[in-house]
């Protein structure tokens, strides 16, 4: 092999690697209008659900391993900014996962905070930060991690199955079928004894299941559904009036807020 050929091969390899790194480091800007006049520093506010409780309100609770899900939106101070806000979050003592970390006005991101076993008995402080150009906004939230365990998953899954089978037949427009995959987490586990709650997430929907721990005919169960990533509140709700009596679900008034 001649020196010239070796130099050409090495040069080619270096050029490929430099090009890859350059493309990765400077990706083409998305959302930039044709005239290029984008004010990337337009101020904005981030809005988070649930809000931080006041001092005179009960604090929020979770247990280790629970997925505490914050919904985050942005409000631009000026019209027409077409660049996204990049979200980041920190929560010492917990894992953080952000779904849709680049959001525009109207989008809903989810910041999921998962306390570790080591954080039991502590307060998790969650800092959610949005940044776009030189503009930024930050919100701080907290919740306590109680010593408890999730003992409601099995029953919640049974209820979800009943609702899903019915929805698949009676509301095909929702796109929920028996094959839809759901992942669940307990919610508000400490203070709610008579009415239990559980959250399930599919790719498209957040389903909040709640049920009344009571003798028939008062053993009702409800589900409300929020369309993920573009809704802040549920858009459908249904109820089984008595679980033991195997009542058929029926539509009910939709709650105004998500359950957290």
């Amino acid at each position, binding site marked *: *092999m001649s020196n010239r050929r070796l130099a050409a091969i090495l040069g080619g390899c270096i050029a490929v690697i430099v090009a*890859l*790194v350059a493309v990765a480091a400077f990706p083409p800007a998305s959302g930039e209008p044709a005239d290029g006049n984008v004010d990337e520093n337009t101020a904005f506010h981030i809005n988070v659900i649930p809000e931080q409780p006041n001092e005179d309100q009960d604090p929020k609770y979770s247990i280790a391993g629970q997925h505490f899900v914050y919904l985050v939106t942005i409000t631009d101070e000026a019209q027409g900014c077409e660049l996204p806000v990049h979200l980041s979050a920190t929560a*010492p003592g917990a*894992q953080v996962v952000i779904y849709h970390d680049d959001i525009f006005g109207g989008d809903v991101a989810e910041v999921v905070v998962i306390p570790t076993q080591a954080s039991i008995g502590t307060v998790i402080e969650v*800092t959610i930060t949005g940044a776009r150009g030189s503009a930024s906004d930050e919100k701080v939230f907290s919740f306590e991690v109680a010593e408890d365990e999730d003992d409601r*998953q099995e029953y919640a899954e049974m209820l979800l199955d009943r609702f899903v089978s019915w929805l698949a037949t009676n509301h095909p427009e929702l796109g929920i079928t028996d094959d839809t995959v759901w992942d669940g987490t307990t919610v508000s586990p400490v203070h709610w004894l008579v009415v239990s709650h559980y959250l399930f997430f599919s790719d498209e929907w957040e389903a909040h299941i709640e049920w009344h721990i009571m003798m028939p005919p008062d053993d009702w169960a409800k589900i409300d559904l929020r369309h993920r990533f573009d809704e802040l509140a549920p858009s459908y709700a249904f109820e089984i009036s008595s679980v033991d009596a195997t009542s058929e679900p029926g539509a009910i008034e939709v709650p105004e807020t998500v359950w957290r």
Partner: protein
Amino acid sequence: MELARSRTGLLAGISVLAVVFAIALTFATLQLPVIIGNWLSNYFPDIHPIIEPEKVAEFMAVARPVGYACLAVIAILIVAGIVTGKRKLSIFGSLAFFLPTFGYFFASMFFLAGLGILRVLFIPFWDPSVNLMNFGDISYLPYMALVYPFWLGGIDIREIVAWVAIGIGLFIFVLGTIAWFYGRAQKRKTVDFWIYRYSRHPQYLGFIIWSYGVMLIAAQQMVPMGGSNPGASLPWLLTSVIIIWIALAEESKMRKEDNEAYLQYTAHAPFMFRIPRFVSAVVTFPTKLLLKKNRPETGKELVATFAVYATLLVLLSSPFVFLDWPPGIGWSDWPGLIPGLPGPIMNL
């Protein structure tokens, strides 16, 4: 009959010895980093990045140039070994490049605390806006192929895969070392018995498999502070390519020595391990295209082959970088935190 019995007994004894060593070294692989990390934390204590950001900035002001300088020295060692043919330089450089992977084993808020200080070497890969570490993510392909089917069935084998890789790697390495020493003691020019019948480079193969397990454990470590774990796929990939390059260079030297026994041996024993002919054809295709022959022989051909394969593997890893995949906190929780996937634990 007596001879056969004593040979069987010897093989059994060696196998038991190798298993004992493999178990002991697996334990050492997992525990030594913790012990050394605890000791090092006396000198490099943990810092809370939110409570004490000024301390982090102060530390990084010193650590950053040190990291760049160390990486430059290691790169020079590796390149010098490749160019001059002094393979020990490249081996030393590549081992040093992989060593900081153990920094992931030490849980801390500040990534350079305790044993994490080793990762000072990786700073140049973390500093740019793009995470260069992920340019080795094609390495996770075998891991994905093993883990995912079990995950669909509700079985989590992620940690098991890492531990088994470490154990198997060490077992092969120990068997190779025993055979090599035995061959040296018998003054054999070519070691072609025991495990060498199944691999021409069992020690390198053992190292590559062992380090793959270490790399997986590093990638699986949980992330403090809501950050992400970049893993150490690129160091593993480059180290493995360098090791394979060294093995090829050694073979090239042996072939030139006109060692008939060695040539006969290579006709029967596979390079690393036996793979289907189709896979072998795919793997060696770039070499055949580049050199119009099956293997590099001269120093220049070896350098060209090394460069092309390293570039190809980086190129194959680029979709992981450009698609920012896996999402969320990355490999440390893949595939558990991908929405819509079933799993043995309830995840979002």
